[in-house]
């Protein structure tokens, strides 16, 4: 069983699916010869050929728009955008094209497309290379938005995304691309979408997060356990559509929630989760819902980014605040 990093698991999933389904193709800037700027497509062109691992001209809108046309013909493109900060030219095509085609044609045409993009801060990257704007996608009906927090989830969720008959935005937390390794069987087993993962069971407070900040959230849970606070930790994994029942069950048990996101606080996915809990489980709450988020500021450049991103101490502070209620 290979021991792989998160980014190697991404490669493994694409390689597996390209091997079993000839309709699956990879396209994007530098994905072929270069194997992707982060090496997510390393070796794929050598193995599957230039016709299936396609270096495109440099134009993000084109990559997305082209993929819509290919998908409408029954191909299953996996489009790579190099960084989430450069997705905005493609956003028009994702929103007006990919997300709507099934609905616009009453199911006659559909877009089985995956748009992969690395996102998030913490790697001291240049400007526009560190943002987390997942809420923009989560707001769009017709899209699914998925992010893994571990190598195993990267493999299983990406397989599910490729096999999904609708467009999936697959966000890769680049800060943890090579942080940990896991043993993964390359067996083609997909994980379910629209399903949260309970990473740790606990009784006092529910911590909800996704992507790279799952790392800090679990560290915070460790620290808090030492202080006698028992945290249940949930990785939502599928940002849209959200699996709220799993979160509700946990809230019924703990009565306290802290949501951790790297994205700016206002209008974030955490806001939606908090609103859902307020609407449907208010009476289960014994404390206000806490949110630890990126500040409502432009993502700072490298020197200051650590102050912007949720650190373990911010999470433990917030948990202690909600623990004051009983």
């Amino acid at each position: 069983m290979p021991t792989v990093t998160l980014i190697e698991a991404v490669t493994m999933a694409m390689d597996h699916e390209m091997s079993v389904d000839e309709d699956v193709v990879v396209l994007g800037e530098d994905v072929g010869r270069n194997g992707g700027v982060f090496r997510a497509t390393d070796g794929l062109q050598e193995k599957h050929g230039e016709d299936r691992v396609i270096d495109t001209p440099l134009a993000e809108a084109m990559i997305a728009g082209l993929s819509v046309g290919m998908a409408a013909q029954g191909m299953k493109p996996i489009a790579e955008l190099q960084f989430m900060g450069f997705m905005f030219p493609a956003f028009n095509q994702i929103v007006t094209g990919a997300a709507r085609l099934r609905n616009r044609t009453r199911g006659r045409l559909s877009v089985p497309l995956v748009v992969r993009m690395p996102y998030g801060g913490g790697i001291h990257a240049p400007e526009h290379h560190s943002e987390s704007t997942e809420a923009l996608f989560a707001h769009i009906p017709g899209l699914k938005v998925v992010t893994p927090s571990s190598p195993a989830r990267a493999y299983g969720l990406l397989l599910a995304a490729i096999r999904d008959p609708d467009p999936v935005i697959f966000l890769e937390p680049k800060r943890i691309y090579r942080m940990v390794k896991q043993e993964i069987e390359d067996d083609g087993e997909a994980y379910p979408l629209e399903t949260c993962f309970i990473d740790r069971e606990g009784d006092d407070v529910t911590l909800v997060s996704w992507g790279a900040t799952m790392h800090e959230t679990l560290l915070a849970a460790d620290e808090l356990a030492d202080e006698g606070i028992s945290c249940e930790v949930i990785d939502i994994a599928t940002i849209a559509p959200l699996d709220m029942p799993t979160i509700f069950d946990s809230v019924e048990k703990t009565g306290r929630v802290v949501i951790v996101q790297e994205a700016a606080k206002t209008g974030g996915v955490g806001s939606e989760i908090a609103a859902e809990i307020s609407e449907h489980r208010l009476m289960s709450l014994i404390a206000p819902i806490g949110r630890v988020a990126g500040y409502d500021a432009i993502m700072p450049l490298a020197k200051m980014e650590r102050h912007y991103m949720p650190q373990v101490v911010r999470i433990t502070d917030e948990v202690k605040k909600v623990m004051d209620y009983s």
Partner: protein
Amino acid sequence: MPTVASFEVSYLQYLDENSQAVNDLPDFAKDTNLLTGLYKDMLFARTLDYRAMSLQRMGKMGTYPGTLGQEAVGVGSGSCLGDDDVLVPYYRGSNTMIQHGVKPHELLLYWGGDERGSDFKNPRVRQDFPIAVPIATQCLHAAGVATAMKARGQTGRAVLTEIGEGGTSEGEFYEALNVAGVWNLPLVCVINNNQWAISVPAEMQTACETFAQKGIAAGIESLQVDGNDVIAVKDAVGRAMEKARSGGGPTLIEAICYRLCDHTTADDASRYDDPEAREEAWAKEPLKRLGDYLVNLGAVTKKQLEEFEVEAKEAVEKEVEIYFDTILNNPQPVGAMFDYLYAELPEKTKAQREEVIARDLRAREGG
């Protein structure tokens, strides 16, 4: 200094504005039955257009983008589409779509506010794209369809897309031509240069002498045709499609005509149009051009042309009847707004679907 690149843009015209043949006609145009058919199709287009306008004015249909004066562009282009080709139309593409096999009542349904109008039932057009409203986005979809055809080695198929001259100012237009050039895609793009992007005239869109030469910047064959001459349009698009089907790569064709109607029913061109220019354009319009030619040739009589008008009106009314019957007697259930979002509706959204259905039911039961 040496010249490292140079280019020319040719202009194709067979019938001049006096309906005189100025060039040897292509073979298909020697068949007067075929030309009469094209005339009838353009007449149907114009009749449908007037009827759509009146439906909108009566409050029986939504905003509608007219095609008056542009019938030769749509009919001429669309007549070149084969069973295996794919059309990726823009919002003024009604006539091209009808030529390929979209039913006119489907267009009325779409502009009347019913999504089923884009669920084309004719097997010939099941792979065609619905009308693209966001400007120039369709060019990339078309390039994507062409990419799929090429990747699968499907020679004998090609993609036709269309755009207004204003749309060529969008980056996505150029991005599509660029990739079509680099990958030698089976793609034909027709620019309907009707002189106006709502109120902005063509000369305010570009400093180029022609819109066609934008394709030369992408390294693809590009030419200009008289968009009031259906023979020229059909000849140029037909040859370009055949070239694309046989692996010869993409073509950009600028068809020059004049928008004789408002931009849409929500527009009032009298605020900006030049009445003299419009009057001049009426003298060049495509139906008169071909009709006079056929009459001069003795292929049809003026009386026959009048009979064609009656036939066109009857045919349009049949489509209007289907449209009314559908919206009045067979409306979409409200749950349909959820039924095609995904292959399977997410759990989280199911309650909203049930809510809208229940509210609709209560409202109707309550009278």
